């Protein structure tokens, strides 16, 4: 089994530079697929679940770049390791809680991951830096084609790819863009924006926490409808709406700088002051303050590389802190290490 500690030495390729990487963190495409004539994971016996895992493993072995995919079965991992994969956006909370036969295949740069036996037999994801759903789709589509060479999917000409939940039927596509929207939160315009986006059939969720209270001011916009349109039409629709949200965010920031420049400086400066000096800091507080720092970088107030902050968003999470220290830590010990990590990061800035 490949060691998970290796992941700590690097960051996901989706945290490299990307288009519109100011307000946009990353783009993601997920495809849900199921095997023909096979009970869905939620109702399947242990024997069937294991057979599905073996079938998917075989399909990977037949692929030209099989060697580049790492694989982990959930029943072979500690809960800390499962949390680590979750914090790196490689698996869902649901997969982490699944019994035997569930697992994940991850390629080297962490831009592609295939969950096996989550809600569906296969949940394939493709992540790209910045706004680039087209590329994310192209990569997912290609991986899907490779897998399909050795797997028979459950498919109907009327309903498309058949999924455990009818809300995913058809394309099985969930395309989402992760956005950093502190300008809209500070100007209190986030609620109307969320409402407007929801009204046109897209979903807006906080990455950490719900609604306008989302920690770190990180939001995900995704499609809800998966049937009746082509994948490219769905993606184009999301990209168009996301571009509009980006415009709103940029305008909000401009207005903040025009009308309340001193307050913006104060907001960013205080965040920096606390992060550079705190001896104890919770995840939630750190996310909010790093969000302010990130906006400061976007506005040219701080000479820090934006993507280094983005990577910090992941490195300060509980499982990452514990895996790095190779110890189990109490919440207070974690707050100490988190504060230390951030202080060290800011020392030379």
């Amino acid at each position, binding site marked *: 089994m490949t060691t998970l500690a290796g992941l700590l030495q690097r960051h996901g390729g989706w945290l490299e530079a990307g288009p519109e990487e100011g307000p946009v963190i990353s783009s993601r495409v997920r495809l849900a697929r*199921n095997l*023909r*004539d*096979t*009970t*869905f994971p*939620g*109702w399947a016996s242990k024997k069937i679940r294991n057979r599905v895992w073996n079938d998917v493993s075989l399909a990977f072995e037949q692929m030209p770049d099989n060697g580049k995919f790492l694989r982990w079965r959930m029943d072979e991992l500690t809960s800390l390791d499962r949390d680590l994969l979750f914090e790196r956006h490689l698996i869902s909370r649901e997969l982490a809680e699944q019994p035997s036969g569930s697992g994940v295949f991850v390629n080297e740069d962490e831009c592609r991951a295939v969950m096996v036996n989550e*809600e569906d037999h296969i949940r394939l994801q493709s992540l790209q830096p910045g706004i680039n759903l087209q590329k994310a789709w192209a990569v997912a*589509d290609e991986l*899907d*084609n490779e897998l*399909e*060479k050795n797997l*028979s*999917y*459950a*498919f*109907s*000409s*009327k*309903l*498309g*790819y*058949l999924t*455990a*939940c*009818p*809300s995913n*039927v*058809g*394309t099985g*596509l969930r395309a989402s863009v992760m956005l950093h929207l502190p300008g809209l939160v500070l100007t209190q315009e986030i609620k109307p924006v969320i409402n407007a986006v929801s009204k046109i059939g897209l979903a807006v969720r906080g990455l950490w926490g719900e609604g306008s209270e989302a920690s770190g001011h990180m939001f995900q916009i995704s499609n*809800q*409808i*998966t*049937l*009746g*349109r*082509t*994948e490219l039409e769905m993606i184009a629709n999301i990209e168009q709406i996301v571009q509009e949200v980006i415009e709103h965010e940029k305008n909000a920031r401009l207005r903040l700088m025009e009308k309340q420049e001193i307050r913006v400086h104060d907001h960013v400066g205080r965040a920096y002051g606390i992060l550079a000096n705190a001896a104890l800091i919770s995840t939630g507080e750190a996310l909010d303050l790093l969000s302010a720092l990130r906006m400061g970088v976007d506005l040219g107030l701080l000479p820090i590389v934006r993507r280094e902050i983005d990577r910090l968003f992941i490195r300060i999470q509980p499982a990452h802190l514990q895996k790095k220290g190779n110890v189990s830590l109490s919440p207070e010990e974690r707050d100490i290490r988190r504060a230390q990590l951030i202080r060290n990061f800011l020392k030379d800035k």
Partner: protein
Amino acid sequence: MKCDLCEKEAVVHLTQVVNGEMKEIHLCEEHAVSQGIDLNSPISITDILMGLNGPQKNLAGELSLVCPKCGIAREEFRKTGRLGCPDCYKTFMAELTMAIKAMHQSGQHLGKIPAREGTQTRIKSKIAHLQQELDAAIAREDFEKAVMLRDQIKLCREERAPDEKGDKS
């Protein structure tokens, strides 16, 4: 306001807008609970639509439909909103069709087709795409285009017909 399933006063009121049309569901406390609605937690409209489609009265003693392939009963999937296997789509088609249309505002897949699918599936898909274009052409009163599309659909159907006798792929 009375419950949609009985004569009692409704206590749960749900509204969803589908294709600009307002859809309302009203339930009494007893039926809300029997439809699996936890009155204390937020609910998904998906679950409600799944539960309320098909036979209107979900009374005790109603014959339970069970998927012959995986053995999942209608009640189980209504409760969880999750199907048991790909065949469940056939078994529960009657109640799924409406729920799927309400969720997706469509009942026809227009996306990717697995490479393994036969020519029949591809032709069916082509017809579905042309039909969508035809509907759009009629809606904007472009009858010249509509006639052209109708002829194309006819050709596709003819192409499909000879195969249908032998090849069922």
